[in-house]
């Protein structure tokens, strides 16, 4: 067989026509084409790394731009005690679940959360971990930004503790001893904020505040007023107070 004969034989192999819809398929592909991603997809780990990097960058830039802002760690990071409290949530049908366990303390009227654990919700756990870490990081590096110290604040806090943790407008309904600590029982009521979907007519908050713990709430009750009756929605009970005993200077 010579080359011409081979070419003639090869030419016997024809190709069936392509389907008429091929052009439409390709055209449809144009409209549903993937859009350019300017950033690679990130998972939870990537998101966490991004947030952490941004926080560090923020601190570095802040330190460089405002040297006076960056100061020594806040005294709020030296707790004399840590209280362990259980937060229980109540549904409308009366059922309850342990929402979280909180390790915290009070510093000049603010509650500082060192750790919070939600055993049933990993996403909530991740969010509170990030939030608590960021807050502690900011207190460590830029305390004047997140919790500025001032003599006016010290004076208010001193008076607040001396009054037995009663602030302006608070209603005292009694005194009780909780976990060996004397407490003042405060009860405040109010109306819901004007927004859709609240579904209740008012709220009531009751707190058992211990002056010797910087007015830390050893017990709280949150209630909603529905049809003239208060329904318990959330309660928090401190089950133990662990003394750290290092610094009591934050108390008057």
């Amino acid at each position, binding site marked *: *067989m010579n*080359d011409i*004969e*081979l*070419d003639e*034989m*090869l030419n*016997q*192999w*024809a*190709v*069936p026509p*392509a*389907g008429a819809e*091929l*052009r439409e*398929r*390709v*055209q449809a*592909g*144009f*409209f549903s*084409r*993937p*859009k*350019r*991603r300017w950033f690679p997809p990130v998972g939870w780990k990537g998101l966490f790394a991004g947030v952490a990097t941004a926080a560090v960058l923020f601190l570095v830039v802040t330190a460089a731009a405002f040297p006076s802002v960056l100061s020594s760690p806040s005294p709020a990071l030296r707790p004399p005690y840590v209280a362990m409290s259980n937060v229980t949530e109540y549904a409308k049908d009366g059922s309850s679940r342990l929402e979280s366990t909180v390790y915290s303390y009070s510093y000049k009227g603010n509650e500082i959360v060192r750790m919070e654990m939600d055993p049933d919700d990993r996403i909530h756990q991740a969010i509170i971990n990030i939030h608590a870490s960021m807050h502690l990081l900011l207190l460590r590096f830029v305390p004047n930004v997140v919790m500025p110290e001032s003599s006016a604040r010290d004076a208010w806090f001193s008076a607040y503790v001396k009054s037995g943790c009663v602030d302006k407008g608070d209603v005292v309904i009694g005194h009780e001893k909780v976990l060996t600590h004397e407490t003042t029982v405060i009860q405040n009521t109010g109306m819901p904020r004007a927004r859709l979907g609240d579904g209740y007519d008012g709220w009531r908050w009751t707190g058992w505040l211990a002056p010797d713990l910087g007015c830390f709430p050893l017990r709280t009750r949150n209630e909603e007023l529905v049809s003239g009756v208060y329904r318990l929605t959330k309660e928090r009970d401190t089950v133990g107070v662990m003394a750290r005993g290092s610094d009591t200077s934050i108390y008057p």
Partner: protein
Amino acid sequence: MNRDEYLQLFDEHHLPLYRFAYRMTGSVADAEDIVQECFLELLRPGCSYDAKRTPIRTYLFGVVRNQSLKRVGQGALPVVESATAHTPECDVLRTELERTVALAVTQLPEGQKEALILAHYEQMPLAEIARVMEIEVTAVKSRLQRARAHLKETLAAYVAGPERKR
């Protein structure tokens, strides 16, 4: 690239690409899928096509080649569909010859098959074949010669048959 430019590109190139894909895989459905994939590749955000370095035709043939090799590698040997088999009045001998040629070509070793299809059926210059196959021009020549020699042997009996009958 807007829609009109994209469709113009399709209209200009899809037929030779489809023929190449069909002859590589032996399947109309696979060939259509490959051509579709080939044009979608151009829209992919990370598309590697660089107009300054490679002519679009060469790039598209390269994509079709890779896709075809992937499909042929995944499945069994291609079953060749005849272009004329469904016509009632077609010549039985012609159909048989077509199948024989198709089988002989598709059973060539991959490198030889690609070189032969591009050179003979698509009339592609050797230099361009070399770029599509990512090999040297001398290697293309060598594979082409071996493919033709192989086919001459395989198909010789078919040519000799009628002559012997005479």
